[in-house]
Structures are given as C-alpha cells and as structure tokens.
C-alpha cells in the first residue's frame, strides 16, 4: 500500500485553503441530550406501565412525603436562574461575578443532593422492598447521577472562568453555554419526575 507523506500534504492544503465552518458543537450536544432524554423516557414508560398493570402486594408502603422534593424542585429552578445570571455576566466580561454565580449554582446542586440523600435515609422502604420502591430509587438515582455530574462540571467551568489564566471569556462562552443547557435539561427532567412520581 502506498503511504502518503502526510505532513507535506497538510501544509500544502492549509496554505491554499482557509476554510471556516459553522460552530455545531451545540447541535451535537442537543442531539446527545435527546438521546439522554430517551433513556429517561424508557424509565418513565416502565414506571407508568408498572403503575397501570402491576398491583403492589397488600401492605406495601409507597407513600412519599412532599416537603423535601418540593424544596428540591425550588432549589433546581432557582439554580437554573442563577446559572443564567452567570452566563449573562460572562458575556459582559465580568468574570468574577460570573464565577460567583457559578459557585452559587454548584452550591444549590450540592444542597439538592444532600436533601435527596436525606430523603433516601428517611424513607420507610428500601431498594428491594417492592416494585414501586425499586422504580423510585432507579429513577431518582439516575437523575441524581446527572445532578452529580452537572455539579462537577459547574465547578470545573467555575474554575475555568477565573480571571488569571482562565479559558472562559466573553469570546469563548461555549463551555458555559453547554453546561448551562445540560443543567436546564436535568432541571426539566426533575420537574417531569416530580410530577409523575410525587404528585401524580
């Protein structure tokens, strides 16, 4: 097989062609989030089917308390707003302000996770008690995993938006926008989850 001398080839190409293309990273992320959303859709479909056709054994406990999840819903909704604030600040080149909002958002995420764990420890049923319990833990656990990853990513971009040596500027806002979109997505999933798991 003939081997090309690739280094020469590329230099020649680059000197001739100065090409630009549209930024489609956000497009890729949205496609990924659609895929991720389908995972949740599968879980929701399973949960709703169980609820419709699989009666729980007599005496099974499946009552949920509302205060903590309601607090959690408020926490996530507020965190979406604070994240948005961070993005606005970054666009105006106010990096330290943006960083503050990001840390506050991550803080809200951590509080959410602590509340979620608190709820887990005080629920009257365990993972294997009955079908409802298993589905409850699978759904909230899978969502909690998303919140954990999101919080970690927020901390990373908060670090990257530092003034000295940070990557994020008003010219390069993509990392922040990407995590923001992901965070809104996780937030939206929680609202659906809250409605069908706790209220419905």
């Amino acid at each position: 097989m003939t081997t090309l001398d690739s280094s020469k080839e590329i230099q020649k190409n680059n000197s001739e062609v100065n090409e630009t293309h549209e930024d489609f990273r956000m497009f890729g992320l949205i496609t990924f989030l659609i895929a991720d959303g389908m995972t949740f859709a599968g879980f929701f479909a399973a949960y709703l089917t169980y609820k419709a056709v699989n009666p729980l054994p007599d005496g099974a406990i499946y009552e949920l308390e509302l205060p903590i999840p309601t607090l959690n819903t408020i926490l996530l909704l507020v965190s979406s707003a604070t994240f948005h604030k961070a993005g606005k600040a970054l666009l105006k080149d106010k990096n330290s302000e943006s960083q503050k909002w990001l840390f506050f958002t991550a803080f809200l995420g951590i509080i959410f996770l602590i509340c979620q764990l608190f709820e887990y420890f005080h629920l009257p049923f365990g993972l294997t008690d009955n079908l409802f319990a298993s589905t409850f833990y699978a759904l909230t656990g899978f969502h909690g995993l998303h919140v954990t990853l999101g919080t970690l990513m927020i901390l990373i971009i908060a670090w990257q938006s530092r003034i000295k040596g940070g990557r994020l500027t008003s010219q390069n806002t993509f990392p922040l926008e990407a995590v923001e979109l992901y965070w809104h997505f996780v937030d939206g999933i929680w609202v659906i989850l809250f409605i069908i798991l706790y209220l419905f």
Partner: protein
Amino acid sequence: MTISIDPQKTNNESLQPKGWLRYFSFSLDHKVIGIQYLVCGFLFYLIGGTLASAIRIELASPMSDFMPRDVYNQVLTLHGTIMIFLWIVPVVNGAFGNYLIPFYVGARDMAFPRLNAVAFWLIPPSGLMLVASYFVEGAAQAGWTAYPPLSITTPQSGQIIWILSVLLLGGSSIFGGINFIATIIKLRRPGLKLMQLPMYCWAMLGTSLLVVLSTPVLAGTLILLSFDIIANTGFFNPVLGGNVVVYQHLFWFYSHPAVYIMVLPAFGLVSEILPVHARKPLFGYTTMVFSIMGIVVLGLVVWAHHMFTSGTPPWMRLFFTIATAFIAVPTGIKFFNWVATLWGGKISINSAMLFSCGFIINFVFGGITGVALAQVPFDIHVHDTYFVVAHFHYIVYGGTVFIIFSSIYHWFPKVTGKMLNEKLGILHFIITFIGFNLCFAPQHWLGLNGMPRRVAEYDPQFQFVNQISSLGALLMAVSTIPFLINVFLSVRNGKDSGDNPWNALTPEWLTSSPPPVENWEGEAPLVEEPYGYGKEISERK
C-alpha cells in the same frame, strides 16, 4: 459563530503514526477510523462465524453430542451478540459511514473527530470482554435478547459481562450516530443541497436518527436488568412482583429499529453501487429519500410484532400488524427502484454487481417472509421456530452481509489504489450465494413443521433437512477463504486501479485513490448530480 480551521491544530495530525501503525493509534482521520471499524468488525465476524459453524455441527445430529447443552446456549448467545453488535452494526454504519460520509458531504473529516475515535476504541475492549466471558464462568446463556426471567436465573457473571459489553457498544453506536447527524446536516460543503446528496447519506441520516432515539432505551433497560441480577430488585422478576413483558417492550423498542439500523445503511450502499455498474442514474431519487424517512418513522412504532405470543392484547396486535404491513410499502418502493435502475442499463457483471444482485434476490425473499410474520395468525404458528431464524438471516446475511462484501469489492480500489481479483471475487460470490441459500432456505420448512429454535436437540425426523442446512453453513465458511486470499494478494501486489477505476461520478472518486489525508487537494468539488450517468459530459452539472 464560525470556527476557522487553525493550521497549527490540524498539523498535529502529522505527528500521528504513518503507514500501517496508524491503524493501531488513536487516529482522528475518518478514513483510518473507517478501516479500523472494518478490520475489527471482520475479525469479530470470523469469531462469530466459527461459533455459527459450531452450532451447525451440533445440529447435524438430533442429539447434543458435539457440545454440552449449556455450552450450546453460550455459543448461540455469543454468535448472535457478536454478529449484531460487533460485525454488522459497526461495519455497515461505522466503517462505510466514516469512510464515505465526509467525502459525500464535501468535508475534510467528520464533525467531531475525537468523539469519532472514542466511539471506535470502545469496540475492541467490549468485544474482547464479551469473548473472554466464555473463559471465566461461562458466557451469557440467555440469547442475544437476554429475556428475563431466563437472564436472571442463568449464571450471573457471564450475563453481567454481556450487559456491560452491550452498554459500551450501545454508547459507541450513539456517539457515532450523533457524529453522522451533525456531519450530514451541518458540515455540508457550501452550495450542496440536501436533495443532491448521494443516497447513502440519507440512509445514514435515517439510521442515525434511529440510533439516537432507540439505543438509549436499551441502555436504560439493561441497567434495570443488571439491578435485577446484582441487587435483587424485581423490575422484571415475576417472583418479586415484576413484569417480564415490560422488558420485552423496552427491549424491542430498541431491537426492532436495530434491524433497520442494520439494513438501512445497506439500502444506501446498494443505491451507490448499482448506478455505477449499470451506468444509469438511480431510479426515483426522491421516492428513495421519502421511503427511507418513512421506514424510520414506521420502524419506531412496530416493535410489538415480536411479542404477539406474550399476552399482547388484541387491539395492540391489530395496530402492530397493520403498522408492520405498512413498512412493506416504502421497502417495496425501494426494491422496485433498484430493479428499475438495472433495467436497460449497461450492466458490468463483476463481483460488486453480483453481490448487489444477490442482495436484491435474498432481500425480497426475507421481506416477503417478514410480511408473513407480521400477520398474527401466521406468527403464532411459527413463533420461536426456525422460520424466524430463516427470515432473520435472509435480512441480515442475505441482505446486509452481501452488501458489505459488495461494498468491499466496490471501494477496495478507493482505499488501497489496487484492484481485487475478479475471478476470486466471482468464486467468492458463487460459493457464498449457494451456501447461504442452502443453509437458510430449508430452515423455512423446518420452522413451518414446528422445529423450535435455540435448541441443541430436536426430533430425529428433521435430521436430513438439518444436514442440508449444515452443508450450506460449511460452504459459507469455505467462501471466506477465496475472499481472504483475494484481499491479501491484492493488497500486496494487486493491479493498480488508477484514481477512478469504475468511472464513477460520486464525490469520493473525484480525488486520488488512496485519498490524501484531508481528502481533497484544494477545495472540495461540488457534485450536484452524483448519479448523472448516461448524459454527455457537457450536460452534466
């Protein structure tokens, strides 16, 4: 916002290994990744084929004398999983998609080259893990469908490794799908319209939509199944109040579209190959596009036709029968379009053309049995018999694998600059075609007469027909030999092909063979009529 290509950054590619070593590197070049997919997939095809031969040897006699029953179950599970997830899906999507799509859209690489390399490198470890599970405590035994409660009650370690491996392969598939969608929609050369794209782009767009929408559901399902196995939950375990039918619904929500994920790209590839070797434009371009998209939409709403015997309520049976029968319409349109493309063409009888024609013949047979299986009264009779095995193999082997070989003969000169030997190629086709039909056509009869599938032992009255089938399998195994000899000889000292041996008009042939690292010297050509055969050069755009 626009991104300009930074010469400094692209130059990093020149730091990557060259020659054959680059095929073992984390290369970002879509052509290298395409070949990695193809060769890796073919190695797994050889493993899966060996397992298939073992199955046919066992079935040559009615008793289980060649291997113990539990080993037979492991072998058939590994055969199915390897062939689907490690050979057909990666090769027909990953290999040809990565190699051809950037050429077709006039780009220098895929939209996300790093994601692309990650998607490939997920495959070898998960494949090896799957094969290795056989040597630990035995591989999974529950078939490629892993239906509970069977998958919960069989030995756990093999089943868990199977789940992990399929999850990784599913992830790889999703990453690939995202990349294809972004490349086809967003990375087209300026001036190139969607309706001017070669048909394979449309097929890959449809396939990738199915991958992105349905694979995650399988991932979620398998996570729940692994909880059932490891953590003793009861999602799919009736003893603990769970529901096995929910698993079937979720599984087939992926695995029916998976059939289209395996066969739609083959539709695209055959639509590229036929016009070139018949010297005629592709018949009915627009109807082809709408058929593909129709199959995508319908493919998502027919899954329960796999579950007619699972206590599915009558209204659901009716709906899924009708929806499935509807799929025959777009598929039939495509079939007639291919035949019409050949009609009156200047047909060259070469290996690529022969395999494509073999595809058309086998596929229409598999399609007809598919429509038959969609009818509830018939399906209840042949459910879980060899009729289903025959139907399925007519689609994926007689359909897709024939097209994989056809494509290898067609694009081998593109990749290597050498021609494959035509005599060996035609020999390969003849043995494969006879072997395939000898192996699977008798299985329709076996199924209609009630021989169940997935069993190591059967009623002695079926022995003779099973032996014919095993003879066919032997021929299929033998057919690989001329192919391998052909490839090895041609890579070393095949006839030089020149840049465009077939005088094709699709964009990948408008650069040198093998292509330069960034695909084109200078700007990518604008191909408005990829199928403009039979016209004077001055008439072509």
